[in-house]
């Protein structure tokens, strides 16, 4: 099935079980992983990507992602840079991937949104405003993911 707008995108993601949501979330994050230079984010994503991840490993990864996110806050009043900020949102996306799923919450949708924010920060930093195709790319990934 093809996904043309966010309403369908959100519905499709919500309908997936938690494990598959985690897989698709990781896929969204990998697209923007290059924007983050934090090793902890990379390690969290790798462990989230493994299907046989245990509760404890998930906990550890969540902690690492949390630390990465907190360290990358733009400080109040500091001359913040959007490039650095995109790394912050990649960390937030990673944290969504490794979060213990709470019924009613869609970790995949959250990860997708954070990934898009990361991309927006990059395009704002490059002065392109909001011209980016992250959303359509995410639709493609979901469509291919749903066929498997």
């Amino acid at each position, binding site marked *: 099935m093809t996904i043309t707008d966010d309403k369908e995108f959100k519905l499709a993601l919500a309908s997936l079980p938690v494990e598959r949501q985690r897989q698709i979330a990781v896929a969204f994050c990998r697209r923007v992983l290059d924007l983050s230079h934090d090793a902890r984010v990379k390690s969290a994503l790798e462990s989230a990507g493994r299907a046989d991840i245990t509760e404890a490993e998930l906990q550890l990864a969540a902690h690492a992602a949390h630390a990465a996110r907190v360290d990358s806050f*733009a400080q109040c009043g500091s001359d913040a840079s959007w490039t650095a900020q995109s790394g912050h949102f990649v960390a937030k996306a990673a944290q969504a991937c490794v979060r213990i799923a709470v019924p009613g919450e869609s970790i995949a949708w959250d990860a997708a949104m954070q990934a898009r924010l990361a991309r927006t920060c990059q395009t*704002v930093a490059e002065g392109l405003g909001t011209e980016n195709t992250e959303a359509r790319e995410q639709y493609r990934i979901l469509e291919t993911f749903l066929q498997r």
Partner: protein
Amino acid sequence: MTASLEKGVRVLKEVIDAPIASYFNSCVHCGLCAEACLFYTETGNPKYTPIHKLEPMRRLYEQEYTLLGRLKKTVGLSKPVTDAELGEWQELVYNSCTLCGRCSAVCPVGNDVVYMVRKFREGMSASGNAPEGIKGAANRTITIGSPMGVKLPAVKAQMKHVEKDFGIPIPMDVEGAEYMVMLSSMEIMNFPEYLGAIAKIMQHVGKTWTLCSTAFEATNAGMQIGNSDLARVIVSRIVEGAEKLKVKTVISPECGHAYTALRWEGANLVGRPFTFKVQHIVEVLGEFQELGLLKTEGFEKVRLTFHDPCQLARRGGVIQPQRNLLNMVAKNFVEMPDAGYMNWCCGGGGGASAIEEGEALRLEAFKVKKSQFETVKPDRVVTACANCRIVLEEGLEHYQMDLPVVGLTEMVADHLVAKGA
């Protein structure tokens, strides 16, 4: 023209008034203000005693505005205030003071110490003795429009993102709207969800609102640095924007000092009462709740507590609304010790978190917050200030405490019944 001691002294002569004179004459050196200041209680270093942070201004007041002081000065008995001394006092007046007002709350003779620190910063900034961090923030706010250099395109980008994420349009420059919503750059950069929450709430209660392209930034680095001239330039943008759009109420976002700058200092800076109302978002939500406009569903079950931003509660007078809102959406809300009016500061307000060299001191001062959380043992902390959130998260991370921090507005928005349901 560059900053000079002479300019600083002249500004202090201008701002020293009857309250400050009365306060200096009432201080009996009892040391209670220190017992209320987290920078002393957590470090044990007496130099952080709040009234001591005003020593140069006290001497200046004595030499300029008391007869005996002036006589002592003419015969050379008094110790003049020097630029070196002001430089030395910078750490005390900025790094170790977030203008949280706890000292004023306990002084037995009623000295408003924080009022005096705010005035002393006028002299410190005019004499060029303000920290680099805040100078940069002030510079960027005036030249670019936001202390963190956020420009309008970036705001538009975040708006577009939030529109997609929340599925609600974000109005900008809509004349005649009832509410004009301000954002702090912290929210634009770190917590775009805040804007989404606002959109959801306004849609829910059916109120018209708008952002303002020429005045989207709520924070006022001019006030943080303590310079009324710069603060006036910054706040005038908001006043012009609000009056141009003819809004009834300007909503100050989840940021403590932005609220103080706009709500309490704004009118005095521009020299005339505002023609529009100014309310903190928590006040607005409180009003909506009283009017029965907020229909919520479900309750947060986890054990949560509320951190009162100083400028909102103790310095701003908004204490009960946040509790009513929490009780509306949470079942297990517990108050931390000293909650409400006497709550402890997160340690990063008033521009303090923009001062790199103050980092270590802030983390040490954070121990009081840590002990508050250890006493209450919450599963989540709710607050209503973006900077508090970040300072709390950084502090908790530093002390390896796994405790998520969320904004009250977002939490309320999450529990709103969907439109038309």
